[in-house]
């Protein structure tokens, strides 16, 4: 028990008076700013890569056949949902994703895709801390097995998760 001249809360009173703020080292803000700039650059490169690959595919298809790539005879559409994955290596990542899309088109599959921005606005019941959905591709394949094989070869599957969902069409 404290002595009468040392009330129980003297320590608490003293602690409440310590400075609540300290100046952080300058290098922290610099490192975070650089990281932010890299993320912005990676997002830009991704959009450019996907757009460029789609334009190239459309141009090729338009020259050789019809305005749009001919769908496979028994093709079904699948959504490739890209979850998680690291944010490092933005330029290489975007280039790899673009190359995958071009390669898939060469195999006669219609492919489109978009990268999703970080912003997410929740309506309805909120999920408990899901892995971030980074982007998606819409791919045409003849079967679920073929779609899964395509997904396994997607560069995002190296460090992220690609979930394949058949698109339900009437």
């Amino acid at each position, binding site marked *: 028990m404290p002595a009468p001249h040392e009330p129980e809360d003297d320590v608490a009173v003293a602690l409440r008076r310590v400075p609540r703020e300290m100046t*952080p080292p300058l290098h922290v*803000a610099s490192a975070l700013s650089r990281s932010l700039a890299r993320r912005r650059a990676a997002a830009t490169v991704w959009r450019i890569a996907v757009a460029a690959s789609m334009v190239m595919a459309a141009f090729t298809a338009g020259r050789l056949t019809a305005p749009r790539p001919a769908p496979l005879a028994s093709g079904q559409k699948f959504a490739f949902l890209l979850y998680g994955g690291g944010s490092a290596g933005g330029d290489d990542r975007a280039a790899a994703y673009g190359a995958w899309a071009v390669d898939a088109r060469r195999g006669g599959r219609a492919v489109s895709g978009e990268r999703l921005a970080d912003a997410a606005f929740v309506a309805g019941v909120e999920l408990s801390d899901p892995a971030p959905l980074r982007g998606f591709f819409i791919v045409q394949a003849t079967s679920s097995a073929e779609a899964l094989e395509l997904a396994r070869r997607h560069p995002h599957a190296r460090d992220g998760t690609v979930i394949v969902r058949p698109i339900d069409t009437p």
Partner: protein
Amino acid sequence: MPPTDSELLEAFVGDRSERSFLALYDRHAGAMYALAYRLMGGRDADAADALQEAWTRALPRLTQFRGDSALRTWLCGFVVNCCRERFRGPLFEPILDLDVGERPHSTDHTIDIDRALATLPPGYRAIVVLHDVEGYTHREIATLLGIDEGTSKSQLSRGRGALRRRLDWRALKVRL
């Protein structure tokens, strides 16, 4: 009139620019760093790492901030978690040995509160810092550290006792 936290947040989510980030950072990093510094026992390099990691984790989630608490409290939650992980184990471990925390054998009467805090075992230090410096409630501390409210209360009392034994009360009273 300075912009509110909501306005700063909205600006950053809208453009993700360095300028809007630094406006947010400048407002809250000082408090986040002070918390990290004290939780890490005054090790400034570890505190800086924890601060950087906390912002790295918070930035992608800023759009999920729903305003249930103050933005600073929400950001400081990341700091606490990062500090916990840097200890490679629980930041809080119950300490039952009442002899722990005897005043150091020193004649230095100028020992200040931060130095005394740094010598506390991490379990005491976390609760004393969160409750008495940062103003968290026992319920909030229990949630942050994954312990019972009752444990938080009892360890706070013991932590204050250990801190008291480390402080030179004559010097402290002069400062008060």
